[in-house]
C-alpha cells in the first residue's frame, strides 16, 4: 500500500444538499476511510421546544426537514393529540394523508432531479422541476405556502379542500405516469447511468438492519418494512397499496424503489381524492389550540417519511410547554452508515452513492 492522502470534502459542496463534511482518506483513487462530520446546521430545535408553548412550536417543526414539512407536522401533532386524547375527524385524516403523499411526490421528484445532476446529467433536473411545480402551486393554493406549510393543526387541518382543487390533482395524477415513463426512457436503461450505479454502494440486508436504516434504502435491500403498511396509522389501513421492494441493495435498486414509489404515491393520492369527493364531514375537532390543555404523559409517533422512519417523542409535564421533544430521523442513521457503504469504492463514486441515499442535512442536525 502506498502512502495515503487525506482530503476534505465539504462542508460547502454542491452535492451534499446541505452542509456535510466528509474527511476522506484515499489510497490513490480508492477510499480507505470516510469520517462524516455533522452539526453545521444545528438549530437547537429540541431545546427551542422547551421554551415555547405547544402552538408556538408548531411552525418550527416544518423546518426539521424542509422538503417534507407535512410529515414533520403530522408526527408532532399526532403525538400531542394522543397525549390529549383528541379524536380527529376522518375527513381531516384523509386530507392529511393526501397532503403527505403529495409531499412525498415532490420530495422524490427533487431527489430524482438533483441525483441525476450529481451524476452529471443536467436536463432531467428541468423535467423533474417542471413536474414538481404543479404540486407546489397546489400546496400554495391550499395552505398559502410552497414550503413550511403550517397547515395541520391540533385536531385536524386549517382549511377545507375545494372540488376544483381536487380536480386539479386528478388531472395531475392522470398526466404524471406518462411523464415517469419518459424519465425511465431517458435514465433507467442509459448505459452511462447503469455503469455508475449498478453494483455500486451495495447495502446488505444485515448491514442495513444493524445501522437502523429504514425507508426506501432498506426496501431496496430486500426488507419489506414500510410503517404505513405495518402499523396502518392514520387511514393508511383503508387504502390499497403495496410498497415496492428490490433485493440488490445497490445504488440502482434505490433508484428503482423511489421511481416505483412515485407511481405508488399517485395511486394513493387518487384513492384519497376519491374519498374526499364522495364524502363530506368536519375538517377539525373543535380544539382551542391557543389554550391547549395537555395532561401529563408521553407519546412516540411512527411515521414513514420519504427518508425513512420519523419518530417524534413528546413528553408533557402538564404545563403549556412541552417538557421534551425528540426527533428521530432517517437521514441521521444514513450518515452514520456512510463509512461502511463507501469503503473500497473510488473517489468519484462518493457522490453517486451518497446521492442515492437521499440524505437531507437539516434533519440530521436538527
Amino acid at each position, binding site marked *: 500500500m502506498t502512502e495515503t492522502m487525506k482530503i476534505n470534502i465539504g462542508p460547502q459542496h454542491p452535492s451534499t444538499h446541505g452542509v456535510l463534511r466528509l474527511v476522506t482518506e484515499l489510497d490513490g483513487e480508492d477510499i480507505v476511510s470516510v469520517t462524516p462530520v455533522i452539526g453545521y446546521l444545528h438549530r437547537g430545535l*429540541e431545546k427551542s421546544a422547551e421554551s415555547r408553548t405547544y402552538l408556538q412550536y408548531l411552525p418550527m417543526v416544518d423546518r426539521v426537514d424542509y422538503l417534507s414539512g407535512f410529515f414533520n407536522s403530522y408526527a408532532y401533532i399526532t403525538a400531542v393529540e394522543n397525549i390529549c386524547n383528541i379524536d380527529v375527524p376522518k375527513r381531516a385524516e384523509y386530507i392529511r394523508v393526501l397532503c403527505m403523499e403529495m409531499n412525498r411526490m415532490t420530495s422524490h421528484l427533487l431527489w430524482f432531479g438533483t441525483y441525476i445532476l450529481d451524476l452529471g446529467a443536467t436536463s432531467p433536473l428541468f423535467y423533474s422541476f417542471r413536474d414538481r411545480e404543479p404540486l407546489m402551486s397546489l400546496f400554495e393554493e391550499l395552505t398559502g405556502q410552497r414550503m413550511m406549510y403550517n397547515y395541520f393543526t391540533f385536531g385536524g387541518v386549517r382549511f377545507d379542500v375545494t372540488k376544483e382543487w381536487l380536480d386539479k390533482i386528478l388531472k395531475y395524477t392522470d398526466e404524471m405516469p406518462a411523464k415517469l415513463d419518459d424519465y425511465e426512457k431517458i435514465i433507467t436503461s442509459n448505459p452511462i447511468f447503469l455503469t455508475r450505479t449498478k453494483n455500486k454502494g451495495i447495502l446488505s440486508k444485515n448491514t442495513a*438492519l444493524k445501522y437502523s436504516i*429504514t425507508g426506501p434504502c432498506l426496501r431496496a435491500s430486500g426488507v419489506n418494512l414500510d410503517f404505513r403498511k405495518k402499523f396502518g396509522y392514520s387511514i393508511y389501513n383503508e387504502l390499497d397499496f403495496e410498497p415496492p421492494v428490490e433485493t440488490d441493495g445497490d445504488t440502482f435498486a434505490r433508484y428503482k424503489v423511489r421511481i416505483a414509489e412515485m407511481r405508488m404515491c399517485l395511486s394513493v393520492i387518487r384513492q384519497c381524492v376519491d374519498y374526499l369527493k364522495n364524502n363530506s364531514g368536519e375538517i377539525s375537532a373543535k380544539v382551542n389550540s391557543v389554550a391547549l390543555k395537555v395532561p401529563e404523559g408521553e407519546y412516540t409517533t*411512527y411515521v414513514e417519511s420519504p427518508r425513512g*422512519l420519523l*419518530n417524534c417523542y413528546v*413528553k408533557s409535564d402538564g404545563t403549556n410547554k412541552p417538557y*421534551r421533544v*425528540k426527533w428521530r430521523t432517517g437521514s441521521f442513521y444514513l450518515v*452514520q452508515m456512510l463509512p461502511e457503504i463507501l469503503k473500497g469504492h473510488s473517489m468519484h463514486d462518493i457522490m453517486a452513492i451518497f446521492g442515492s441515499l437521499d440524505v437531507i442535512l437539516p434533519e440530521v442536525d436538527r
Partner: protein
Amino acid sequence: MIDFETIKNKFPYTEYVDWKIRTNENDIVSLLTFLKENSEYSFDILTSIIAVDLNDKIELIYQLYSTSLNTTAQVSTYTFNSNAKSVINIYKSAYFDECEIYDLFGVYFDGNSNLKRLLMPENWLGHPLLKSYEMKDERLVWND
C-alpha cells in the same frame, strides 16, 4: 404486545410501567442482548435512544422494533451520575445516538471509547439539553 412474564422471570428487577420496560443501569446490556437474540422477540432494530433530563436523574429510553413480530418495545433506565453502559456492541446504530446524548446531556457511555461532540462545536462548554443549562450564553445570538 410483547409477553412481559418471560422477561420478568429472567430479569427480576424489571418492572412494566406505562408502556416501558424499566430496568436498572447494570441490567441494560444483558436485557437488550436477550431481547435481540431470543427468537421469541428478536428486536433487530434499535430505532433510537431518547434521553430525558428529570432534574435529579436522566432517563434513557431505548426504542426497539422487531421486523419479524412487527412490534415495538421501550426499555427505560435511569442514570443518577451521568454514567451509563454503552450498547454499541449489540446495536451498531447506537454510536451516533450515544454521541448525541453525550453532547447534549453530558452522559458518559462506558464501553464507547470514541465519544465525541456530534452537533455542537468541539470546544463548546456545557450540555445544552440539560434543564440546568444556563441560557444566557453570549454565543447564543437570540439573547439580545
